[in-house]
Each structure stands twice: as structure tokens, then as C-alpha cells.
């Protein structure tokens, strides 16, 4: 009995001696903060990785040269994404480490051909998490990865944070990888992905480029087919219920030449699907709350009549945005509003039939838009800064 125990003990110790296979010391890792995927001219996949340099961060308590030296970029090519990624290890002395990656950038060129193939690795490999944000860029993804950001040491993190404050305008959606996967897995939904571009740095003569979020890419299944502008995107977001804040510019009541800004506080939407006369009809009910944020003009708008008019102006502005989005989407035959899911929920019996031909059914849907708005507060001022003009204003 004792002998058996000792042999087992020996075996155990022997297996433990060389140390475990999976052990990775921190200084053998290349921590990747952003990944860009491009298509090269030769048809291969090119991958750009933005890698962290902990050394630089450690010693950069003095703010001499912020940003540029904390990361470096490695580009490599391969036949598939996985291949390209592994090929990058021929340039890095440390194996690439992805769990802390927060940004994926895909080039438009790649997206137009369909991104489903390329994204397979990102969903399958456990090192890639599902929460990073996805972006599409008009040019090359590599350029985005190489860019820098004034305020953050690590540009990848800067891009991530930009995505997170995109709610401030709600003109850009915030899409993380999971969302994308969910949409791709669904039989009827199509995806939207925010766009990102480069803006040259106007200060000094530096060669740096800064990033900027702009536009939204629309995908049909997994192929990109076009761009939506800011307001159209917001239209989509109104329907999806993802508008958290934003500024609606409306003409000032009583003075069409001036504009006022209304800050959206809250918005939600309800989608009702029904059959009317044999046609599928969907009513989008949007409810928005806002505050008077800015009033350019002399008038004193803080009174019930003007507020009412503002509300109506607000509603019509919203309706316009939504209408433009819906029209364009129906024209392109992309269900980016998740109408399919709603119809499934509300008309379950009809759904199996509809599902099969959803691509054709979608453009036929008559979409009614009903917007209901409420204005609440007006900030710290009751009247405008400027004194009212002679017509119709109050004294003092």
C-alpha cells in the first residue's frame, strides 16, 4: 500500500515539476488594445494590432510625450484572420493577448464583401470577449489603429470611451460584438455598425491623425451596403429605443430664422404590428421627453403656448428623422429595426410564413409613425439673455 502511494506521489510531483503549460508571465504578453482587419490588394487578410507598452506607461509619470509611445502597432498578413494574427508573433517578441481588447475596426472594403467569415474567429476563440465595440472605417483599418488620441495614453481605450459617450448625440449607435452576433444569428435582422474616420490634427505640423466617429454602416446580413448619416441613424435609434440623449434643432417658434435646441432626456418606443386589410402594418409609437436646452433669439419661450409649439416642432423633427430612416431602409431591403422580432412576438401564428419571405415582405410594410413629446424644464433662465424686441415682448 505504501509503495503504491509513493509511486502515485512521484508521478504527481513529476507532472508538476516542469510547471504548468498555461503559465504566462506578465512580461511575456503583448496586451492588445485594438484590432483592425483589412483586405490587402492580393486578397489576403491584413491585421493590425495596437499593443500596449507597459514600460512606457510606468515611466511616463512625466507628461512629456503623451500617447505616442505607450503603444505600438504591428501589422501582419495571412490567409485567414487567425493565420494573420499568429503571423504577427513573428514581429512581436511576446505572444499577443486579446482578452483586454476593446475595439474592433473593420475596413469598408472588407465589409462590403461580407464580414461574417472574418468574425468567426472572434466568436470562437475564447480569448476574444464579446463586449468590444465594432466599427467600420471608410479607409484602411490600419490607419485607425495607428492613430493617436490627445487625451488618452492608449488610443484603443480612447475609441472605446468615445463609443460609450455616443449617447450624447445619439447620432451614432453603440454596437458591441455581442449585438452583432445576435443580429447575425437571427434570420431576419440586419445590423448597423458605427463608422469611424480620421481627422488630421490641425495643431502644429504634427503628422498625427485623430479619430472621429462619423456615420453608420448598414449591413444586409453580413455585407455592407451603404452609409446612413447622423440624423438617419438617429431615426433608427428612435425606433430601437436606444436614444438616451441628443439635441434636436428646431426652428424657434415665432421666428423661423432662429433655431432652438431641445435636449432629449428620455425616449422610448413601442412597436405595434397588425394586419390591416390583409397588409402588414406597423405602428411605431415614440415617446420623447425633453428640456429646452438652447434658445437662440429674443423671444421669451417659457410660456405654455410656445412650449406647446416647441413640442410639436420636436415631434415633427423626430418623425422626419424616423421617416427618412425607414424609407431608406425599406428601399435597401434591410430590417435594421428588428421589426421581424416584433412581428414574431405579436403575430406568432403568421410568423412562420412571413419569416420565410421576410426580405420581400419588409419593404411592403406600411409604417406609421406616431410621436408624442413632452417638454419639461428650461434650464436656469426663464427668458432669453437678450432683451425682447418691440413686437409682442414683455417689458423688462
Amino acid at each position, binding site marked *: *500500500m505504501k509503495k*503504491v502511494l509513493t509511486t*502515485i506521489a512521484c*508521478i*504527481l510531483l513529476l*507532472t508538476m515539476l516542469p510547471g*504548468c*503549460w*498555461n503559465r504566462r508571465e506578465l512580461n511575456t504578453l503583448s496586451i492588445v488594445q485594438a484590432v483592425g482587419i483589412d483586405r490587402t490588394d492580393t486578397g489576403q487578410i491584413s491585421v493590425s494590432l495596437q499593443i500596449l507598452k507597459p514600460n512606457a506607461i510606468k515611466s511616463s509619470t512625466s507628461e512629456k510625450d503623451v500617447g505616442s509611445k505607450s503603444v505600438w502597432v504591428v501589422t501582419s498578413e495571412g490567409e485567414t484572420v487567425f493565420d494573420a494574427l499568429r503571423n504577427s508573433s513573428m514581429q512581436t517578441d511576446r505572444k499577443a493577448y486579446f482578452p483586454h481588447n476593446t475595439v474592433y475596426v473593420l475596413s469598408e472594403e472588407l465589409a462590403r464583401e461580407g464580414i461574417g467569415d472574418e468574425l468567426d474567429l472572434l*466568436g470562437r476563440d*475564447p480569448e476574444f*470577449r*464579446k*463586449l468590444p465595440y465594432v466599427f467600420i472605417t471608410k479607409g484602411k483599418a490600419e490607419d485607425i489603429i495607428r492613430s493617436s488620441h490627445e487625451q488618452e495614453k492608449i488610443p484603443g481605450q480612447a475609441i472605446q470611451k468615445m463609443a460609450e459617450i455616443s449617447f450624447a448625440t445619439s447620432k451614432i449607435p453603440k454596437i458591441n460584438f*455581442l449585438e452583432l*452576433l*445576435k443580429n447575425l*444569428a*437571427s*434570420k431576419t435582422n440586419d445590423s448597423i455598425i458605427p463608422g469611424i474616420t480620421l481627422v488630421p490634427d490641425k495643431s502644429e505640423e504634427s503628422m498625427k491623425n485623430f479619430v472621429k466617429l462619423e456615420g453608420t454602416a448598414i449591413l444586409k446580413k453580413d455585407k455592407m451596403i451603404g452609409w446612413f448619416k447622423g440624423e438617419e441613424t438617429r431615426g433608427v435609434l428612435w425606433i430601437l429605443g436606444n436614444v438616451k440623449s441628443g439635441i434636436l434643432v428646431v426652428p424657434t417658434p415665432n421666428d423661423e430664422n432662429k433655431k432652438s435646441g431641445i435636449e432629449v432626456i428620455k425616449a422610448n418606443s413601442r412597436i405595434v404590428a397588425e394586419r390591416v386589410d390583409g397588409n402588414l402594418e406597423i405602428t411605431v409609437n415614440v415617446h420623447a421627453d425633453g428640456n429646452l436646452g438652447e434658445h437662440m433669439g429674443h423671444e421669451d419661450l417659457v410660456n405654455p403656448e410656445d412650449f406647446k409649439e416647441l413640442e410639436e416642432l420636436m415631434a415633427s423633427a423626430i418623425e422626419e428623422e424616423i421617416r427618412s430612416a425607414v424609407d431608406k431602409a425599406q428601399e435597401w431591403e434591410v430590417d435594421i429595426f428588428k421589426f421581424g422580432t416584433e412581428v*414574431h*412576438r*405579436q403575430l*406568432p401564428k403568421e410568423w412562420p410564413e412571413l419569416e420565410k419571405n421576410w426580405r420581400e415582405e419588409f419593404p411592403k410594410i406600411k409604417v406609421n409613425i406616431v410621436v408624442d413629446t413632452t417638454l419639461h424644464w428650461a434650464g436656469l433662465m426663464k427668458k432669453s439673455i437678450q432683451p425682447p424686441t418691440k413686437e409682442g415682448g414683455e417689458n423688462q
Partner: protein
Amino acid sequence: MVIIITFFPVLDSPPGNQDVWLALLLSIPMHLLLSVPIYLLWKRFPNQSFIEYSQTILGQAGKLVGLLYVLYFLHDVSMFLYRWSAFLTTAIMPETPVLFILIFLLPFCAYAVLKGIEVITRFAELFAPFIFAGIIIIFLLLAKDMDLKVFSPFLEKSFFSILLGALVTALRTSEILIFAMLLPYVTIKKAKEVRSMFLSTYSILAFFWIICVIVVLSTLGLDLPKVLQFSYFDAVRLISIGGFIERIESIHLSMWLISGYLRVALYFFVIVIGLSQVFGLKNYKPLVISILTILIPISLAIQTNITDLNQFLNYHIEPWYNLFFIFIIPVTLLSIAMIRKQGDIKP
């Protein structure tokens, strides 16, 4: 005094549509139905474990039955070990060979088995609250990401398919047989308490399973989990609160490891006890080492790659295989016992 709480880690959510939770709820009565023969057999032979009374009922042939069940348990454990190491290898420690993972785990389980069933059950008792709490915490942390609209429409498919789902779910849990093996060690002798023990165990199991399902479906949607291999794990990875509380899949991992350890130890114990009962050995302890050495190669040899595993676990094969062992054989034994008027017949 020794109340056995058995539970097992949730790997993949069951197939089906959004009414799955209903199927789970209905699996409780299914479970109870399936355990009826075991329960009746226990009533007749309160001090004997399943393997023991199969010998009592069938005589020498009972030994064959006993052996068959030992093999069944062995198979079950090996599959479980394979599943478990599949998860570890894929998600957590990719480069470590499976052999090492198993070699590392098994001595700990063997130690627990050597210490006896009481230690194992006390371990379960000690950790069960933590694991339940863990599941609930994960549920709460994901609450903001959950989209409960996923669960409508209600009752989309026919009720029959839901019932079938319930049956399938109930059949996945071979814990019923563990009960059968371990009941003689339980000191509760009254029938009513045993019944309530069955009921409470299944209800707790079903409850937590439902929570897991809710978590998965509402965060990942309906279509995605069918695509993902380890849906619950992916859901856990999504937890992100305040930008700070992220990446707490370590909690999930620890719960997983502990429950896996427990389950293997329990099965291990049952196998060893079973073998000692088949061969009439007084003390089961020497068998521990031998079983230990067999388990490792078996669990490696049993499946070659992940596709076999997936297929077996699939809806079509595993439940019916289980049905045979959980229900059909006990019913046969029970009828023979009734015919031969064996055992303790109390009103």
C-alpha cells in the same frame, strides 16, 4: 441527518425555444414520476442500496445487474469528466493537456472518498448555499442586460412538445440513481420525509436551472445560444457594471470547479461502494486507488473529440439511454420483488 443535496454545473442550455423555462418547471413532476420505482424499492428494502437489493431480488443474476450499473456510473463519470475538461481546456486553460487536468483533480476526489460519505455530504451542505448564492448573484448582476421580452410569445409550440421537453430534461439527470445508491445511508426513515426530500431536491434543482436559462436567453437572445458551445459561460462573461465589476467569470469558474469536484467525488464513491457490494467486500477503501487509475484512461478514451460528445448529449440519444437505467430496470426489479413478495412490505 445526512441530507444529500446534489447539483451539477450547467453547461449548455437545453434545446428548444423560449418556452424552455416552462419545460423545466414541468420537469419536476416528471422527475417525481421517474423516481417512483426507486422510491417503492426503497420502501421495500430500506437498508439496502440499489445494487444490494438487486442482488437480493435476483440472486446471482443481481450481481450482473449491479455490475452493469457500476459500468453505467463509470461511463457517466467519464463523460462528465470529459465535458468538464473540455470546458477547462477550451475556455480557461487552453494549453494544459487534459491528462494533467484529470490527474490533478482525481487525487483530491479520491481523498474525499477515502474520508467517507459523510464528509462528502457535509461538503455539499457547506457549499450548496454559496453556489446558489453565486447563481443568484450572477442573475442579479446581469439583470440590467436582460431583455425579458424574449420570452413572449408564450406557448408558441404545442403543449406536447413542452411535455416532451420536460421529460427529456428529467431524463438527463441520473441523480435519481445516486439517490438509490445512497438512500440507505440517510437516517431519515419515514416515508413522508423521504418523499419531501425527493421533492425538495428536484424543485431546488429546477429552480436554479430555470434561473440559469432565464439568464442565458435574456442576455444572449434566442438564436445565439444554439450557436454557442458554452452559453452560460458566455453570459457570465458579459457582466459589466460601472466599468469596474467585470470579468467575474472567476466566480463562475470556482463554483464550477467545486461542484465538479463534488460530483466526481460522489460518483466515485458510488462506484466504489457499488463494486464492493457486487463483490461482497467489507471495506471499500482499497478499491479507491484502483478505480482512480482506471478512471483516467477511460475518460480519455471514451470520446475522441467534441463532436461525439455533442451528439451524444443531444436530444436524441442520451435521454433514452438514461431512461433504460433510470426507469425500465428498476420497474422490472420492482415487479419481480412484488411478485416474489420480497422485502419489507408495509402499508
